[in-house]
Structure formats: structure tokens, C-alpha cells
């Protein structure tokens, strides 16, 4: 346990030294506030840009608060996922490529701890950044539109973050299995996109797909209740995460550290 904490502390320190603790949360906040602010100021923006003929009436229906939050969340589906994958893809692959992983693993370090501590470190960064980012979406939406109850905000946050965790774990898995950080990032993104696309086109059959958690998070905001399939989808997500971690350790251990 103390070895695991040492490994985790190192991850935390590294993320502080390379400023991940600053730029990732800030990026998530900026992603989060973009939607409520642009929706609110859209009429003024159009007005300022001009180009509309005299007398033309700008008729954009004001979106509801729930709609604003949902489009806020959609920012994380695209750019948020991209940032998570890009910041996580090198977490194991880069250390192995540079040879520093071999320096560490000739010491009596458990492979299990090595992989899971890295995963835990990026999890903490991801959950915190996403929480702060989405919290600012909620705050600005409340300020500019209407206040959504905090419990609904929090429920949608939780299930959405669970899906992001799946993507993060997929990235850790490929980072442990492949030598090149770029390749592991590329494959992880491809996997995330394919799961999302397949789940949304076959949504009737794949109600329990972890990718559907994004849809359920939206439904929580719209309908103010948790859809029935949320629980099985969450459980399946948890199972995926555990299995991916298990195989990450398994493959990483099998691979020879010195190429």
C-alpha cells in the first residue's frame, strides 16, 4: 500500500510540475462556459456582427436551461475526450519508450501497483477537472438562464464522468500494450468513436452500452429522473473498467521491458 501511495504521489507531483493541474482544469472550465455564454449573447453577437437586412427580426428561441447544460456536456464528448486521450496516451508507453520504466521496474515494484497508480492519478485529474468544468457550466447557466437543481446536475455529472472513465481506462490499456504513445492515442480515440457511434445507431439494442451513459445524463436533465437502463449501463461500465485494468497489468507484465 505504501508503495502504491509512493507511485501515486509521484504521478501527482509530475502533473504539478508539468502544469497539468493548471491547464487541464482551466481548459475544462473554458469548454464548460462557452455554451451558456454564447447561447445567452447570441442575439447581441448577431447584432454586432451585423449583415442582417434592416427590419429583419432575429428569431432564435431562447433555449431552456436543460438544453444549455446538455449542449455544454456535448463539448466534453468531443473536445473533452480528445484532451483526456491526448494527455493520457503516453502515461505508460512514453515511460517504457524512454527506458525509465525499466529503471523503476528493476526495483521490487509490483506491476499491478505501477499501472493502477498511474491510472488513479489520471482519474483524479480527470474527475476533478471535469467536475470544475461542468460546475461552471451549471453556474453560468443558472446565472444567465435558470437554476437547475444541484442534485440533477450532480447525477448527470456522475454518469457522464463514468463514461469518460471508460475512455480513460481504454487509453491506459493501449498505453500499456503499445510502445508508441501516438499510436495508443489514435487507437483509443478510434475505439471511443466506434463505441459511441455503434451505441447511438443501435440504441434500441444496446441500452446497456456504457456509451449510452451520455444519453442518460442528458435525459436526467430533460426529464428530471434517472432512466431505467442507467444502472445496468453503469454496472457494465464498471465491469469494463475493471477488466481493462486487469488486462493492462497482464499485458504490461508479459511484455519485456527492454526492447
Amino acid at each position: 500500500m505504501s508503495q502504491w501511495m509512493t507511485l501515486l504521489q509521484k504521478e501527482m507531483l509530475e502533473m504539478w510540475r508539468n502544469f497539468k493541474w493548471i491547464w487541464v482544469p482551466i481548459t475544462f472550465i473554458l469548454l464548460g462556459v462557452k455554451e451558456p455564454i454564447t447561447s445567452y449573447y447570441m442575439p447581441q453577437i448577431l447584432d454586432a456582427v451585423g449583415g442582417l437586412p434592416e427590419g429583419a427580426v432575429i428569431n432564435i428561441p431562447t433555449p431552456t436551461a436543460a438544453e444549455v447544460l446538455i449542449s455544454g456536456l456535448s463539448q466534453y464528448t468531443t473536445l473533452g475526450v480528445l484532451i483526456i486521450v491526448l494527455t493520457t496516451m503516453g502515461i505508460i508507453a512514453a515511460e517504457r519508450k524512454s527506458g525509465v520504466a525499466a529503471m523503476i521496474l528493476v526495483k521490487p515494484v509490483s506491476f499491478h501497483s505501477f499501472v493502477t497508480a498511474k491510472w488513479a492519478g489520471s482519474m483524479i485529474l480527470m474527475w476533478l477537472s471535469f467536475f470544475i468544468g461542468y460546475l461552471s457550466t451549471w453556474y453560468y447557466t443558472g446565472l444567465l438562464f435558470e437554476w437547475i437543481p444541484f442534485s440533477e446536475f450532480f447525477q448527470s455529472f456522475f454518469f457522464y464522468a463514468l463514461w469518460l472513465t471508460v475512455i480513460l481506462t481504454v487509453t491506459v490499456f493501449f498505453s500499456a500494450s503499445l510502445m508508441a504513445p501516438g499510436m495508443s492515442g489514435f487507437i483509443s480515440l478510434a475505439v471511443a468513436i466506434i463505441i459511441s457511434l455503434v451505441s447511438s445507431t443501435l440504441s434500441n439494442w444496446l441500452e446497456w452500452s456504457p456509451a449510452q451513459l451520455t444519453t442518460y445524463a442528458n435525459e436526467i436533465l430533460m426529464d428530471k429522473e434517472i432512466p431505467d437502463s442507467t444502472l445496468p449501463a453503469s454496472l457494465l461500465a464498471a465491469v469494463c473498467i475493471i477488466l481493462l485494468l486487469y488486462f493492462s497489468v497482464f499485458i504490461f507484465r508479459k511484455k519485456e521491458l527492454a526492447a
Partner: protein
Amino acid sequence: MSLIQISGLKKSFQGTEVIKGIDFTLEKGRCIALLGPNGAGKTTTLRMLSGLMNPTSGTISFTDAKKGEDIRDLIGYLPQFPVFYEWMSGLEFLSYVGKLAGLTSKEAKERSLELLELVGISDAKNRKTAKYSGGMKQRLGIAQALIHRPQLIMLDEPVSALDPIGRREVLDLLEGLRKETTILFSTHILSDAEEVCDEILFLHNGKIVESGTMTELRERHQQAKLDLYFKGKSEGYTPYFSNHELTLSVMTEGNRVSIFVRDIALARKAFLQEIAERNWPLEKFEVSSMTLEDVFMKVVGK
């Protein structure tokens, strides 16, 4: 007391056998050099001993390892090109690996400071390792191998990448470490092995072709050898010597002809007479004992 026993160790990469079955035993408290030309399989052997690579077959067993004990507790390893977390300082890196090896934070820090002092980079302890020179990295690498007081430290070509001064300093450091632990280090430079070690394993084409202490090797390979230095290239003179009945073998290099002979006294007389008669431009005549280099050349079959 034996420390580690290796038997039938083999390693293949994509069907090509790189290590072709090696056996040896390391005694406690010795300094052993794993000597061999580039590509002989030195690095692969050390990587298997350190657990970074799995042998295709064969066993590595530590005498002192308790059942189920992680052998990484007992060894320290320095790869040929040590790398560190560039964003850590030397002290931070040492304390980090110390803690990973099971020391408490306090112990790890104390031991790190002690080792930084020992390897002579105390002044740079708070500098980021990204700013370390090659020699400093090598020293930090030695320090990290020693952090948990392992029974055996393995160093892969610890001095090959260093300039003459750095090499001198690291060799002196190794000399000092001999008192504390068993050292196995690989090198392709004979004089380094000769200087620091008391025992040598010759590795050639994935096999141990010769091994033993320096004195054993000398005795075993003792042969009468004459070194003749001529003015200018010496090749022209070789046919005479190689056809001589007293000659066992001849090696030529530049202006030197080295001749292994059956009988030193007879050969000296015969050769000198012949040279005087033919009026060859001899500059130096030397009766020499075998150097490690000669043993090396002999065992690798050149």
C-alpha cells in the same frame, strides 16, 4: 559462498539464438567482469539476470532468496544508458526509488544523501536530472543501483560512454564498492576488466568461452611469446616466422609481429641470428608474457 547460480541460460529473438546456453556461478564479495566484443550477448545476459527479460530456457537462482521472494530485492542494475525522470532532481529520484524499494521516507532521504556523497555528485543533488552530463547520469545510475543495499549489483558497460576523466573516476568508484557488495559488470574494454576485477567471464557469440580469475587465466594460457618491432610494415617478414619449426602461431599488427613459440631460448637465438643475417630493420625485440588481450584473442579464435 556462492551468491547466484546460472545454468543452461538461453535466449532467442525471433528464432535466432543469441545466448546459447551459459552456465556460471558467482561467488559472494567478488568483482566479476563479463567481457566480450560488441554483440556477444552481454547486455542480454544482464537483462535476464535483472529480470527485465525472460530467458527462453534455463534457470537463475539466488542462494539467499527465500521461497517466493522477489529477486529484485537482492539486485541493483544499471543499464547501459540510464534514464531518469527529467523533471526530478537527482536527490528526488534516488529517494523515490529508495521508497519504492521499501525504505521509509526518512531512510530513503538519508541513504540518498549518503550515496550522492559517495558517487561524488552531492553538489548537483537539487539540479534536475535533465541537466546532468553523461558522467553524472552514470554516477546517479550507480547510486540508484545501490540504494537498497543489494547483494549483487550489475552494471552494463558503466564506463564505455565516458571521457577519460569520467572513466577514471567511475573505475575508482567501482574499486571502492568492491568492499561492500558483489559486482558484475560488462565491458568490451580489456584493461578495465583487468584493473577492477578479480574474475573474468569471456562471452563470445552467446557462449562463455573462458572464465576464471586473472591468475588462473594467465597460468592456463601461459605461452612463450616474442614481440618483434620493425621499422615500417611488418607483413613482409611474417612468412619466414610462420614457416619456422619453432613457431606455434603468428599475429601481425602494424610494425609488430607477435610470435608464439615452443621454446623461448631456442627461438630467440634462431630468430636473432636470422634477422642479423638478412639485415632486417629490427627496432625492438621483446619477450613478453600473455596479456589479457592475448587470452581474449586466443579464446575468440583469431
